């Protein structure tokens, strides 16, 4: 039983970090209607840039430089990719972000190399004990940081003026324009936030797994969370992240041995498929009502 709780807690802490990545998707989706498949590649790019900057700057300056880069990138993406595609069907934008993902991956690895790099931000990965439960210190720190950022983003999006403007844009592009919210700036801001999320995720996942190509696959972890929670729901992303984190860990440990292991890669997808069959717009997603 103790072991099961440990597994579940470990999973939940990882789940918080999943939630963070999923939140990057949700924010962009809510403010621009774009399903940003390149989120994982942005994470990779941010981590690569950070490692690159670390060779010339101290940690704080390197993080700042990486952040500036991500914001510049957001502005460039808005101008070059999104603006020409404004009136296109959502799936066209979705496919464009797939292309964008490859593009960023190629750029990042072209500049900073494809070899795996270590990223040390000074948090050790030694487990410690609370009340007889063994918990990874790193997961705890990561979970706390991700949790803090999730909280900050939710506050920003729900309460701040800019956040409200972004939500207005997502509800209705034309209406938002007519009340004077510049669509382009709103998009650039939401992509910059996605860049920030990518950077934080890149730092955490990068120092855990090393900075390398596989970091971009983190998006593939976030996708089932996203559709499980509903692509336009912030609480959905958080809850589904936790559910997936805990359940995939439990499934791998307790179910895995019976079927040969490795089920972590697809278990979240299976879970998402089952839930979607009953709730086609995720647990908390807004139903799209089609009219003719």
């Amino acid at each position: 039983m103790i072991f099961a709780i440990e597994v579940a807690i470990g999973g939940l802490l990882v789940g918080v970090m999943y939630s963070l990545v999923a939140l990057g998707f949700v924010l962009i989706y809510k403010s621009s209607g774009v399903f940003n498949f390149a989120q994982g590649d942005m994470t990779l790019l941010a981590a690569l840039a950070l490692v690159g900057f670390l060779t010339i700057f101290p940690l704080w300056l390197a993080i700042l430089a990486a952040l500036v880069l991500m914001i510049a990138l957001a502005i460039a993406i808005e101008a070059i990719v999104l603006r020409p595609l404004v009136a296109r069907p959502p799936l066209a934008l979705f496919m464009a972000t797939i292309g964008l993902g490859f593009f960023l991956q190629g750029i990042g690895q072209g500049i900073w190399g494809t070899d795996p790099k270590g990223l040390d931000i000074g948090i050790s990965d030694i487990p410690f004990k609370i009340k007889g439960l063994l918990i990874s210190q790193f997961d705890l720190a990561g979970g706390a940081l991700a949790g803090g950022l999730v909280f900050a983003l939710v506050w920003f999006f729900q309460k701040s003026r800019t956040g409200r403007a972004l939500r207005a844009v997502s509800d209705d592009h034309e209406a938002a324009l007519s009340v004077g919210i510049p669509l382009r700036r709103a998009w650039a801001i939401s992509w910059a936030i996605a860049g920030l999320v990518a950077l934080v995720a890149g730092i955490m996942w990068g120092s855990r797994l090393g900075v390398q190509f596989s970091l971009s696959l983190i998006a593939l972890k976030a996708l089932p969370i996203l559709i499980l929670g509903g692509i336009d729901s912030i609480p959905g992303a958080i809850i589904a992240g936790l559910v997936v984190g805990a359940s995939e860990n439990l499934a791998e440990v307790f179910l895995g041995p019976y079927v040969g292991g490795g089920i972590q890669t697809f278990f979240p997808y299976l879970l998402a498929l089952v839930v979607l069959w009953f709730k086609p717009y995720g647990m908390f997603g807004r139903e799209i009502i089609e009219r003719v």
Partner: protein
Amino acid sequence: MIYRECGVFKANYRADMAIFPIPLDRWGVIIILFIAFVVVPFSASDYWLSSILIPFLVFSLAALGLNFLTGYAGQLSIGHAAFMAVGAYISLILYGRYEVPLLLSLLGGGLVTAAVGAVFGIPSLRIKGFYLAVSTLAAQFIIQWVLTHWEWISGGVFGTVDTPPMQVFGWPIDTPVKKYYLVLSVVVPLTIFGKNIVRGQLGRAWMAIRDMDVAAEIIGISLFWNKLLAFTVSSFYAGVAGGLITFTYYGAANIEAFNIMVSFHLLGMIIIGGMGSVLGSFFGGGFITLLPIFINQFAHAFGTVLKTDLLACLELILFGGLIIFFLIVEPYGLARLWRTGKDKLRLWPFPY
């Protein structure tokens, strides 16, 4: 000779509905088939045949399959390479282990894949848009896992099965030319079959669902059957292509040859080549197959030999950039550019 549609008077609907209603197109196709079946095998080098033409044709076939589903029926799939993997393993097992004749093994691989594809198409009956696109990724991961973990298929977690020597009707298929003929004689009939499907009743039903599913249902098109059929037919093509590429190109079924990157390549092929176009599938297949070779040649021309990882990065950048470029500039891909070019040639100097 000028490409002309004017002056071609079709006296009956049969002529207007021919697969290539314009005589020059008809001749063009006959010439292309002549080149493909007669000229190429006698003039192309083994390198060209086995490293460029064979993968070009097979990937074009797989792209055509994806085009049925995504370009015609409007259901985005980003896990299509997994269906190729199913076809690869099943046809190899049929041929190698159960000694089914080669062509029947390929057919069997395709049919099993079609069944698997139908199963993964079931969610499309309830799930739409992004939700569906992401759930097609489930196919990628679940199939990969099953193929590597089911011992009957792969014999263990390594998931590699070697191809035995090939024979068709007792003829050994051992040289690049023979392999090329094998590929060609599968790809050509399937392409014609596919062209007939998309220009007929089923193709129209698919396009109607793509353009507006609610309206399609109201005029009496069953979403259930047509979507499932799109998944089935599309997976069949992917399965046959998977079997073919394994027999004629890779030489062994390996799950890594059908990973998610390959799924994206297929998607890139139809975006760049042309969504909803049979010809576009081939343009895209050729383009993506040739891209790394182009880059290499280009680098050579400047006297630099690129390191392989830099080459891979350049390929990623170009691949991603071209997808964006085509989506923005020409959403119907190379096939539309081709059409536009042809339209310019209509009855020059007075094109209409």
